[in-house]
């Protein structure tokens, strides 16, 4: 068996989700190679080659891979699978991986498996359905296993490898789509999906101004990423990439602090695998308390500043 992990990158740096995908690929106990398709992407390829457990890096460069259009990537990967005999293709379960993996699978005429949280062997997986309310065991005899993996379910590969990078000729340019632009929210804070601590706010904050005024000092003090419930996003307090939940980001930090979040099922599905959950809410019956390790009933506009002060005094 030979496994190909599709790297998500910006030609310079490998995305965190790819490290988890490499970690997941190692569960097969087989040879793992990483594809870095881009343009002038040597830095990203070298980073992939330095990951522990990576046996080789396939580097492909062409101007029409610079922005990684999914149509071109899928054709490239399907060609590599046929030419080099890969029997599994993995990508992180990010918007990049979810967009790409089914397209690759369709070109290979195999059924893809999405959002895998556990790999028990080749063709034996567990994945969540119904917004995480049900887990299903899936078996597949497909000759090529095409998977996306939930990043929070697999440990990230660490540095410590020294694989060779080999350049492979580019595939076809379908030229059916073109990137016009990307607006990526810039932040000094850790990335929400991979942060060790997440502070999340809900509609209890009341407004975008209050969200920032109350939660930013706490996030600063804890070195935390900021998140939000869907209610807070829909109310316009914060942009939608803050959203934690089934239709937003799935997070599993060491510490998740839910502030003014009632705990709708959709939100719980996105954070219930956090190691420690703290809930602060004035409603003692809020469902969030049913999953919280430590619940504090109180007015968040009083308790959060106290918490910021208290943390400062202790450090």
């Amino acid at each position, binding site marked *: 068996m030979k496994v190909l992990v599709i790297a998500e990158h910006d030609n310079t740096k490998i995305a965190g989700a790819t490290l988890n995908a490499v970690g997941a690929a190692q569960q097969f106990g087989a040879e793992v190679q990483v594809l870095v398709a881009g343009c002038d992407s040597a830095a990203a390829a070298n980073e992939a080659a330095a990951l522990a457990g990576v046996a080789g890096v396939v580097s492909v460069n062409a101007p029409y891979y610079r922005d990684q259009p*999914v*149509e071109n990537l*899928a054709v490239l990967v399907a060609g590599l699978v046929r030419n080099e005999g890969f029997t599994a293709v993995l990508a992180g379960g990010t*918007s*990049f991986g*979810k*967009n790409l*993996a*089914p*397209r690759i*699978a*369709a070109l290979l005429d*195999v*059924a*893809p*498996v*999405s*959002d895998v949280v556990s790999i028990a062997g080749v063709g034996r997986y567990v994945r*969540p*359905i*119904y*917004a*995480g*309310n*049900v*887990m*299903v*065991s*899936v*078996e*597949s*005899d497909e000759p090529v296993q095409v998977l996306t993996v939930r990043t929070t379910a697999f440990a990230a590969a660490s540095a410590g490898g020294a694989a060779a990078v080999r350049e492979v000729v580019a595939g076809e340019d379908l030229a*059916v*789509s*073109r*990137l016009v632009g*990307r*607006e*990526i929210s810039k932040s000094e804070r850790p990335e929400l999906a991979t942060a060790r*601590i997440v502070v999340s706010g809900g509609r209890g904050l009341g407004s975008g101004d209050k969200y920032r005024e109350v939660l930013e000092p706490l996030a600063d003090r804890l070195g935390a990423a900021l998140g939000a419930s869907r209610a807070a996003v829909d109310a316009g307090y914060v*942009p939608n*990439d803050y959203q934690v939940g089934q*239709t937003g*980001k799935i997070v599993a930090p060491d*510490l998740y602090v839910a502030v003014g979040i009632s705990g709708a099922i959709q939100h719980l599905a996105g954070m219930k695998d956090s*190691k420690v*959950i*703290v809930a602060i809410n004035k409603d*003692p019956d809020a469902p969030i*308390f*049913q*999953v*919280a390790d*430590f*619940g*504090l009933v109180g007015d968040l506009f009083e308790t959060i500043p106290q*918490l910021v002060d*208290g*943390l400062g005094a*202790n450090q």
Partner: protein
Amino acid sequence: MKILVPVKRVVDYNVKVRVKSDRSGVELSGVKMAINPFDEISVEEAVRLKEAGTATEVIAVSCGSAASQETLRTALAMGADRAILVETDAELQPLAVGKLLKAVAEREQPQLVICGKQAIDDDANQTGQILAALMGWGQATFASKVVVEGETLRVTREIDGGLETLELKLPAVVTSDLRLNEPRYATLPNIMKAKKKPLDVIPVADLGVDVAPRLRHTQYSEPPTRKAGIKVADVADLIAKLKNDAKVI
């Protein structure tokens, strides 16, 4: 421009699903069913494009049992012009649905297909991408804005960390994300009108597609539930617990 909108009949999003006692599946008997919410958003977008004069016809299509006619009537009541049911009682997985939709697209020759980004039952998030691949068309998944400009399509997509705008050649496949629009409620007169709109039924066998499931779902289970912890008295108590008991700060 013709727009094809695939719709799926799923368990209503308000229903708390239960695993059958023999773990062979999810309890569906007596459970309220509805149109997949992301497909509802897709129907709305297609109807708005027709109302804006961009689209000439909106065709809703569903693959599944006769009960999916109800789902198609919902799409018709929202403003789709006609509907197609690709009928089968067999289990359909996304690869098979993609192939059936390809067969329908070859008959109907739409310039645009708008799918939901995922169905809220299997959460696969695959069908739109599979259809686009099989057709050799461009795809724009997780769309939050769709603009047709002549022969090109401009789509804003929700990606990790922000937004991305793509330009695609038509024909193309778009998959809808939550924030694309807010679907309308079908009015009673439109629900009545929908009953008279054409709904063609095509037996799966007529499309010559191998729809045999490729994946086996061997066991369903409920995830381990998290136990409620304790209520702390005040902020000082919380900080002490986090430092000394949980050791996370």
